[in-house]
């Protein structure tokens, strides 16, 4: 009989369903084919005009009915599609899921189109603060109201899939997707649930979002060849590429998965986190919080650094992140880091922000299942200060039993996941 508890006697958490949408396409199959072919989903922006913008490229998801309907609508649709794929694949009910929902999604705001539209009806004799308020109270717009409520997307998803209890919507910035998974893992380990649905979804690539990151000098401005702009670990990397996407994972106690004869796609073996108190956007120069995060995830999984076969990098392609990520990993893994394969999915899909940790967890599962490591593309000009085997430009076949997946975010957020192909 398979052992269903881990090294600390806690329930082992299996992954029994995965779903994903990115600029590369909808669904696990299309994404994996594109990702292993080294194809980029980065393209010129067409959703809004790019006049006055320094960055005119992105990895938006432009092929869905909600792609032009604002951040809330698109984030919901992205989440729904990936969750539907994940739950369907798990063999569980798609309208009576019966476990808690953890949703990583971007903070919501009143869309500019709605703001303009309200203002078009405004009485300009009123003081400025009251103009939109007066329109709001005179013509209630429930759709607009819902788009400003932080709990609305998770509420709708709970209805759609029959999730149990109060759904949690969370943000740990660019680590959100990993945090959603961690919350699910913890709930199962506490014995509160046999299964949990963890989703990361982000459809918030509006003009204002792009401008905000641009004003922080975080984005690549290499607009001429969009597919070449995201170049993690390269010497001429100059920022990340704003992108959208979503991924969902059905997490389930191994015991429950085996009992119902579900296919186990992988094991979510460990999670680690540690906050950074150095700066709002920069990491502590000694990378100690990231180091502590990786070590915490390894310890939680009950394995040592030597047991990791592959690292799915945060790898944003910003000068700061890639340097810090290298420093933290080479501290934990030592000399071995020069030979340990590490690749960045963001070289092809860009940075899906709130979704990234979940998207990359799904790709990590696929990496183990298929024995194929997706490449880091655009690695034509290696940064000599970052000595890594980034699986440059071309996929690689390899036996991958364990993956470490990193996620780091503004606000000192660090989260790290350890996944395994087999239990124990």
């Amino acid at each position, binding site marked *: 009989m398979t052992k269903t508890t881990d090294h600390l006697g806690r329930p082992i958490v299996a992954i029994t369903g995965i779903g994903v949408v990115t600029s590369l396409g909808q669904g696990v199959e299309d994404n994996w084919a594109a990702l292993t072919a080294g194809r980029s989903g980065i393209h010129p922006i067409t959703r*809004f*005009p790019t*006049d*006055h*913008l320094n960055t005119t490229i992105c990895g938006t998801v432009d092929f869905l009915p909600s792609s032009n309907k604002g951040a809330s609508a698109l984030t919901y649709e992205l989440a729904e599609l990936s969750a539907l794929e994940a739950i369907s694949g798990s063999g569980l009910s798609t309208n009576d899921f019966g476990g808690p929902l953890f949703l990583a999604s971007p*903070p*919501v*705001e*009143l869309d500019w189109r709605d703001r*303009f539209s309200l203002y078009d009806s405004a009485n300009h004799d009123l003081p*400025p*603060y*009251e103009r*939109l*308020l007066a329109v*709001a*109270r005179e013509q*209630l*717009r429930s759709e607009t*109201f819902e788009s*400003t*409520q*932080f*709990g*609305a997307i*998770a*509420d709708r998803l709970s209805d759609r899939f029959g999730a149990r209890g*109060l*759904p*949690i*919507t*969370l*943000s*740990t*910035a660019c680590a959100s997707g990993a945090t959603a998974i961690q*919350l699910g893992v*913890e709930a199962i*380990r*506490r014995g*509160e649930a046999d299964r949990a649905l963890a989703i990361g979804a982000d459809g918030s690539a509006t*003009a*204002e979002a792009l*401008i*905000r*990151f641009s*004003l*922080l000098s975080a984005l690549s401005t290499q607009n001429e060849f969009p597919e070449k702009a995201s170049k993690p670990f390269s010497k001429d990397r100059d920022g990340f590429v704003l992108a959208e996407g979503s991924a969902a994972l059905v997490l389930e106690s191994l015991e429950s998965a085996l009992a119902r004869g579900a296919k186990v796609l992988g094991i979510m073996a460990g999670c680690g*986190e*540690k*906050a*950074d*108190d150095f700066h*709002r*956007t920069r990491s502590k120069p000694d990378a100690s*919080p990231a180091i502590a995060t990786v070590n915490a995830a390894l310890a939680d999984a009950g394995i040592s650094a030597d047991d990791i076969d592959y690292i799915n990098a945060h790898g944003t392609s910003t000068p700061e992140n890639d340097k810090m990520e290298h420093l933290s990993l080479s501290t934990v893994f030592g000399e071995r880091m020069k030979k340990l394969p590490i690749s960045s999915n963001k070289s092809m899909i860009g940075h899906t922000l709130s979704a990234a940790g979940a998207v990359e967890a799904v790709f990590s599962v696929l990496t183990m299942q298929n024995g194929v490591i997706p490449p880091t593309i655009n690695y034509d000009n290696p940064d000599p200060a970052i000595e890594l085997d980034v699986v440059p430009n071309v996929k690689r076949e390899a036996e991958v039993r364990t993956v470490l997946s990193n996620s780091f*975010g*503004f*606000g*000192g*957020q660090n989260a790290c996941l350890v996944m395994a192909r087999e239990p124990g």
Partner: protein
Amino acid sequence: MSERDVVITGIGLVSSLGEGADSHWQVLSTPGQAPRIDAERFAPYTIHPLPPIDWGQQIPKRGDQRQMETWQRLGTYTAGLALDDAGMKGDDALVTTMDMIVAAGGGERDEAVDQSILDAGLKRNDREVLLNEKLTTELRPTLFLAQLSNLLAGNISIVHKVTGSSRTFMGEEGAGVAAVETAAARIRAGQSTHALVGGAFQTEHPDMLLTYELGGFLHRKRWKPVWSRASNDGGGVISGSGAAFLVLESRAHAEARGAKIYAVIQDVASGRARRAEGNLDEAISGLVRRFDLPAEKMLAVSGASGAHVATGAERRALQSAGNFALRGFSSLTGHLREAQFPFAVALAALAVKNGASYPAFDAENEAELDGAPKAALATAIGHHRFEGAALVVAA
């Protein structure tokens, strides 16, 4: 009694009534308190404004203060009050291993920039180009971070060095419920030994009022207590600026460091009623029935928002599910959205600790209650969605 009981060892509070756990107890336990309101600034809406705050008391560096809009500053300040109260402030060994869950909103936008875009937009057909033009030149680069949801937690890490972990939950009142519930569940299960949990809300911004009024939730006439607002006076909610943070610990952790204990969070229950189906009354009474309640009449610190459907349902449900003396604190603080549930739990803990109930905040609608409460209920029924309750008992 168990080593893994979740005990409250620190409370930080700010509202229109003042700042600090003890000062809130003093004010709220004095009968006949009048609300502190501003009915002019956002007329026809009344708000409960922030009290005067000397930010430097908890956020010493002016550079840090400048990196935050008021909401983040309020939360960071109040988190500092809670850490101080727990005797943890500046204790590196404790704060660098401390977990944190913040219930956050966000979006404190630059009113002047937005207004100039709206006004210019009246004369332009190419509004999307206008947006690019204005936002690229007029937005303060760091404003994004100063209003971003997870940066309240980020600033608490920077200012107070709370770095064991940092998670931000979003979703109005439900975020506050889930934050307390998750932090408590982690401690009870041994996943955490001590945690900072709470939220802040700063209502003095037209967009913050707008997120209520797009759903028709705001009371528009003269101030009334939360139970007495009529539907022809608007939606029933009067909002306030305020914050509540709690330091939670396992009993073993608290006792080992000799901490004072306010009370125990015995249980937290949460839910997502399908309100459109009209089952909110049952959902709320169902939450409360999950608790092991004493037979005698009991204090219920209610976070009722004033929103007609939810507030009516809560009142009926608590009447049917037990014998409660309600205290709707929003009458005096205004609705604090994400901070509502942590605030309710804090007030419940203060009553249990001080061995006295609060006098009625609204004598017409709230029953008398004498004697020293051994337990108190705390509720936050979301003005539009999500519900939570906690049972707080004597240590």
